[in-house]
């Protein structure tokens, strides 16, 4: 019999002060400043902003330090912080065609208006550890090149001229975009809501699912039509002003995945599309999101749903790493009462089993006990 007890208050307090000590580490090593994290661990900061679903570099940097570099813990901290703030509204939709582009590549067209701009990429590096970086040497200023401001239309607009690609996704007229921070998830779910869930989804989970589609589970022949990274302006309609108020700029990564599609009863042969849009410079995540978006459109396009990546309820219900870690990690919290009940149950079942399988021995045992 287990009775309710309480305890551990001192242990918890001491554990937290030990955590604070270990977080700080060796005091002879200078403490990290938030601006160092923002500037030098920028992609980690971007991941926390994207999956924490809150664009604020300093808060993300604070969360990373507080979590000792555990990004999922940092994402959890950011999500919790969000809930303390009032909501001012929904921005006007950003225009990625008007982006101040820092990187833009297409795997489908060599010569496209605006060109291929590699930007600050890991691509084509040799993935060799750099001892000079460890020594902390000076870094040269980047090169500059004269440029005439050339428009950079989205690649989807170029393909659209031939009519061989489906248009940008349209929801029914008068559709108000769903918001998973306001309403519980319901299945089946509209594409706008799915995209919101994917944009904050766990990079590792979406990467694995995207990878699975390439390996043949829901194969859909993807090409990167375009990836672009850069800053876009944000505007908000407010009642006190006769125009949309400009808020500043945010950096986003957009991925247009183009997929071969042989046609179905519902649609002619054409290229179909998957779309990825995430906060910060988060290319892998945007690509994985686009692969998953396309795979999850299986029913809409009349494809057979045969693989995990096409199963909307499976993907969306498990893509949020804060929910996932909450449920997995709760298992380590005290379950003493639950376990006592289970122990009692298993003992009884075992006794019944023994009595059934080996009645004599069970009888002996009872007699011995008596």
């Amino acid at each position, binding site marked *: 019999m287990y009775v309710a007890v309480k305890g551990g208050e001192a242990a918890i307090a001491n554990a937290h002060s030990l955590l604070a000590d270990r977080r700080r580490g060796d005091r002879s090593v200078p403490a990290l400043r938030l601006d160092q994290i923002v500037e030098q661990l920028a992609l980690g900061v971007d991941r926390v902003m994207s999956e924490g679903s809150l664009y604020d570099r300093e808060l993300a940097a604070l969360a990373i330090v507080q979590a000792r570099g555990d990004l999922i813990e940092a994402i959890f901290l950011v999500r919790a912080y969000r809930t303390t703030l009032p909501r001012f509204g929904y921005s006007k939709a950003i225009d*990625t065609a008007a982006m101040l582009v*820092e990187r833009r590549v297409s795997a489908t067209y060599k010569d496209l208006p605006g060109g291929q*701009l590699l930007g600050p990429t890991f691509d084509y590096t040799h993935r060799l550890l750099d001892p000079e970086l460890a020594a902390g040497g000076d870094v040269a200023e980047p090169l500059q090149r004269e440029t005439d401001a050339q428009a950079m239309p989205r690649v989807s607009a170029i393909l659209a001229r031939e009519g061989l690609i489906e248009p940008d*996704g349209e929801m029914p007229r008068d559709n108000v975009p769903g918001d998973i921070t306001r309403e519980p998830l319901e299945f089946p779910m509209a594409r706008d809501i799915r995209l919101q869930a994917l944009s*904050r989804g766990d990079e590792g989970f979406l990467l694995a699912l995207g990878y699975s589609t390439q390996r043949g589970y829901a194969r859909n022949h993807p090409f990167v039509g375009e990836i672009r990274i850069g800053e876009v302006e944000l505007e908000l309609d407010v009642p006190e002003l006769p125009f949309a108020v400009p808020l*500043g700029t945010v950096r986003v990564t957009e991925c247009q995945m183009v997929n071969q599609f042989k046609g179905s009863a519902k649609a002619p042969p054409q290229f179909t599309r998957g779309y990825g849009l995430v906060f910060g410079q988060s290319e892998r995540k945007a690509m994985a999101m686009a692969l998953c978006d396309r795979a999850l459109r299986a029913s809409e396009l009349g494809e057979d749903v045969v693989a995990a990546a096409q199963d909307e309820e499976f993907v969306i219900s498990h893509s949020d790493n804060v929910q996932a870690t909450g449920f997995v990690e709760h298992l380590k919290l005290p379950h003493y009462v639950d376990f006592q009940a289970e122990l009692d149950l298993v003992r009884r079942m075992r006794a019944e089993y023994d009595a059934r399988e080996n009645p004599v021995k069970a009888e002996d045992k009872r007699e011995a006990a008596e």
Partner: protein
Amino acid sequence: MRGQEARDQAERKAAMATLAQSSGDDIVRLWNATGLPSDAELLRGPETGLVTVRGRIGGGGSPFNVGETTVTRATVRLRSGQVGHCYALGRDKQKARLAAIADALWQDPARRAEVETGLIAPLRSALATAHERRRAETAATKVDFFTMVRGED
């Protein structure tokens, strides 16, 4: 809307955009240099809240919600009656208050030129320089394709 009113609105919006994109430090530094008055009645805030960022499916399709961003806003009234607003990304309350005062001063015909030349113009030029540098650095990473000579003739 009459032409003049539309032009005024466009200019006011452009000034607000410049203030929103500039750092709080730059605004404070220039403010101190111009000697613009920084006293005003706070009607609201400065307060920090969330704005949900919207994107479009496929880049140009129907809107969807991407995630949230912190925004700080302030509303002020000058003794001369003008009411100014600021909404800016981030959590810089001093910046929001000063930008709201700047917006109010901008609406005062007697002050507009001073705000434009002392504050907005230098901020705008610093932003333009930064953008131009970013563009030029990106342009240096542009791929120039050339055709390999096959040597057949």
